[in-house]
């Protein structure tokens, strides 16, 4: 018994010391002020994971909202476009509530677009407190991040803290998105079948599907299929040899990600919970309330969020300074397919309005 007690006590103390060393070594290697900082933002029960990369001394920050729902900021923090932007400005990658590395303890029934919007507005405030009231802050959102970003602009006071709004293939109106996607599927499927393209059978399957869809009354199941076919369709139209093969970087990202791989299950749960509100939210008619400089970007072959949504947003936004860019060789992710061009137009937009 004595032997066991002595052994246990000794091991326990040594173990704690080992854990302490482990913790210290982890902390020391992570944060490099002004170039690469990572922190949690505690807000309304959530611990939101925030990564700040780039030139903080520029005093220009782009708060980036990922897509999904169920995605993460980490997915966007790589590649040419981020490197080019981070050489000049600071990118702030937020893992939105219930996704990525964000944690905390809150009820799933609390999830709503308003809560996501409140997180965004509060983080904008925090960034100004942390990095200075004189920073120039831009909000950017891709895909579903375009919905939460637009919702925040319209339902919080965040516009007062921003110099501009960047919407990349943004899904600010999913009912409209579904109608436009069905039209786009019809157009391209019929054209590709008539031209006997390499993917005739696949296009025929898509055409058969959309022929059965009432675009004014799209079910959740049909909406999911529109999304899935959308990703397929762009691969049939874009020369895949020009799309960067990032399999190596994905392996690296898996091993170095601050996100636990199975946290995707939580992200999926978040997605399922917020899906109902997301699918029925239409913000197009309120875009006139957005008064800050805005830029809308889309890929010509984006079936997931058709470029006509960007056109519609450009037409209806209340900003006097606005831009629209449709990338000719891109689908849903111009950051992957035309990264240099995307970085150039974003840098020019930010320089003009910072």
């Amino acid at each position: 018994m004595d032997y066991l007690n002595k052994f246990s006590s000794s091991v326990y103390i040594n173990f704690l010391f080992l854990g302490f060393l482990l913790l210290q070594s982890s902390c020391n290697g992570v944060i490099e002020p002004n170039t690469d900082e990572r922190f949690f933002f505690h807000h309304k029960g959530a611990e939101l994971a925030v990564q700040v990369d780039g030139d903080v001394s520029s005093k220009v920050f782009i708060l980036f909202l990922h897509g999904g729902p169920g995605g993460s900021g980490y997915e966007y923090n790589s590649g040419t476009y981020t490197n080019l932007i981070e050489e000049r400005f600071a990118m702030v990658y937020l893992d939105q509530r219930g996704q990525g590395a964000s944690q905390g303890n809150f009820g799933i029934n609390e999830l709503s677009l308003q809560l996501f919007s409140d997180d965004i507005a509060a983080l904008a405030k925090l960034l100004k407190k942390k990095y200075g009231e004189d920073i120039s802050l831009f909000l950017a959102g891709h895909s579903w991040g375009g919905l939460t970003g637009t919702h925040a602009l319209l339902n919080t006071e965040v516009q007062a803290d921003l110099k501009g709004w960047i919407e990349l293939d943004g899904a600010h109106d999913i009912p409209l998105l579904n109608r436009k996607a069905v039209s786009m599927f019809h157009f391209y499927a019929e054209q590709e079948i008539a031209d006997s393209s390499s993917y005739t059978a696949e296009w025929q399957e898509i055409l058969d599907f959309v022929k059965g869809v009432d675009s004014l009354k799209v079910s959740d199941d049909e909406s999911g299929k529109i999304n899935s076919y959308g990703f397929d369709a762009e691969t049939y139209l874009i020369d895949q040899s020009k799309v960067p093969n990032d399999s190596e970087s994905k392996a690296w990202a898996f091993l170095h990600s601050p996100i636990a791989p199975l946290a995707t299950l939580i992200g999926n749960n978040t997605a399922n919970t917020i899906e109902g509100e997301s699918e029925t939210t239409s913000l197009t008619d309120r875009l006139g309330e957005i008064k800050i400089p805005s830029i809308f970007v889309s890929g010509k072959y984006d079936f997931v969020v058709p470029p006509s949504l960007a056109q519609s947003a450009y037409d209806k936004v209340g900003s006097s300074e606005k831009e629209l860019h449709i990338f000719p060789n891109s689908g849903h992710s111009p950051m992957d397919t035309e990264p240099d061009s995307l970085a150039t137009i974003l840098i020019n937009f930010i320089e003009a309005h910072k």
Partner: protein
Amino acid sequence: MSTRLFILFFLLLNLDVNAQESNSRSYAIAYYAAYGYQPGVLLKAEQLLGMKKAPAYGNESSKTFPFLAIELGSYAHFQNNAYLSLGFQAGLRRIGTKERALNLFISLAGQRTQHLINSYTLDADGNLSELGKTGSFAFLPGIGVGFGGNQGVRLQRGFRPYVNFRTQFQIPYGHRYLIHPMLELGVFFGQNR
């Protein structure tokens, strides 16, 4: 470390010590990692229940024993959290022939989760407040299967390697729970003869 963890630790220690007439107590140290690449260390003291002497199980005959272990584990997910847990493991070990052993077990631990990065918030007046490296308490039930760590003929030897594959559930996490697939690769050593 919370008071609750200490109470749990001493309760388990007492349970283990009460079985001291048995000569099948062992200790283990293991590389303990989520997904295999989030590194850490696990220490445990284990008691095979019902084994009074050291028979030559694992040579010609086989038998199944219940076992109980107390364990202290820690691992780190860089840029995210460090975890320190204290709890117990209980299960069955089938000691078969040819020195093979199969373990099926459940575990339960209290876990201290410690962020490795700073936290901030806005106070009621909208001012920035730095919270430091915050942490929280969670429960960590788990279930697993393992191989090796034979307590039969290998009782005569110094080190007995084993591997356990375990799934743990960190509760609560966000609005749900987080699953940790754990790899435990270690050696048993020592016994109380």
